[in-house]
């Protein structure tokens, strides 16, 4: 899918589905796994415990006794009939993901800067689609490779020699 970027350039985006949440014991964090429709691309996003719980409650359609932070966020938007149209994971820079929440309010469209965890937690509650810029998906695979290379110990090279 094509989307016009802020500078007028064409940005390619791919719709992603939340496939699940995994615990990453090495980083003591959670990974939100996004996949595209034909499952050819994968985007793992590391989030904290409370952000993971906000996403998991929405995925499982659990209605907590009191509104949690993202339910409150949705109530805030609902109070004035502001609608979440979509969320886009826009950038990846030094292991930090950036996202935009696209909203419709009184016939105008707004794009609000957000962390992907908030954007995803809100998108699921609003039944809004989640997209990722294709450049993020490409960058993700190269950052992943970089991280893998960084984790290589001298011993690993030794093994190659023998």
């Amino acid at each position: 899918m094509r989307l016009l970027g802020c500078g007028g350039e064409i940005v390619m985006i791919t719709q992603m589905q939340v496939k699940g949440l995994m615990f990453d014991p090495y980083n003591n964090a959670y990974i939100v796994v996004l996949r595209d429709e034909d499952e050819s691309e994968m985007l793992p996003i590391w989030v904290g415990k409370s952000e993971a719980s906000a996403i998991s409650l929405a995925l499982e359609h659990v209605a907590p006794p009191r509104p949690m932070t993202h339910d409150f966020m949705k109530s805030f938007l609902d109070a004035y009939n502001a609608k979440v149209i979509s969320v886009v994971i826009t950038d990846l820079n030094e292991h930090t993901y950036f996202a935009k929440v696209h909203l419709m309010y009184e016939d105008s469209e707004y794009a609000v800067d957000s962390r992907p965890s908030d954007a995803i937690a809100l998108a699921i509650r609003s039944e809004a689609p989640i997209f990722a810029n294709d450049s993020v998906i490409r960058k993700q695979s190269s950052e992943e490779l970089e991280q893998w290379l960084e984790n290589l110990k001298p011993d690993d090279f030794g093994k190659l020699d023998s």
Partner: protein
Amino acid sequence: MTDTAQSNAQDLIPLSVSRVVEDSNTDTRIIVLTRTDDADTFTIWVGAPEGDSIRRALDAATPPRPMSHDLVKSFGEHFGITTKRVVLTDVKSSTYYATVFLENKGVERSIDARPSDAIALALRTHAPIYATPDVWKRRSGQHLDAWLAKLDTKDIDTQEV
């Protein structure tokens, strides 16, 4: 919405957030609210992420990326929705209830919230925080000051070791 939420603004007890105390045993935070007209205090227990969010607002700390309540504030700024006031409206089996009063172009709306989310937003938007006289009467933690002082001292000791 409860009847108490609609009670006269004159009857409401104005509160300010004095501090956020860490309760490391239970991974919760204690929010100490002080009555602005006579310095009497009131405490509520909130979850660690919500408590930390309130602390960041108190410290006027700007995180590198917008946190959840910063995002709510940002939505308000984009749409011209202002947070008029936050009222702690009820307490049932030790659970406090809050109502956030919003305004946009003269249209007022109120939303149900946990006190933690309501306070986290109020501090970011410089909106006043109140409790209804009924909630104030039934508040917990009237005698917690001494205990909190002790807890603070203990925390300092631990850090020095």
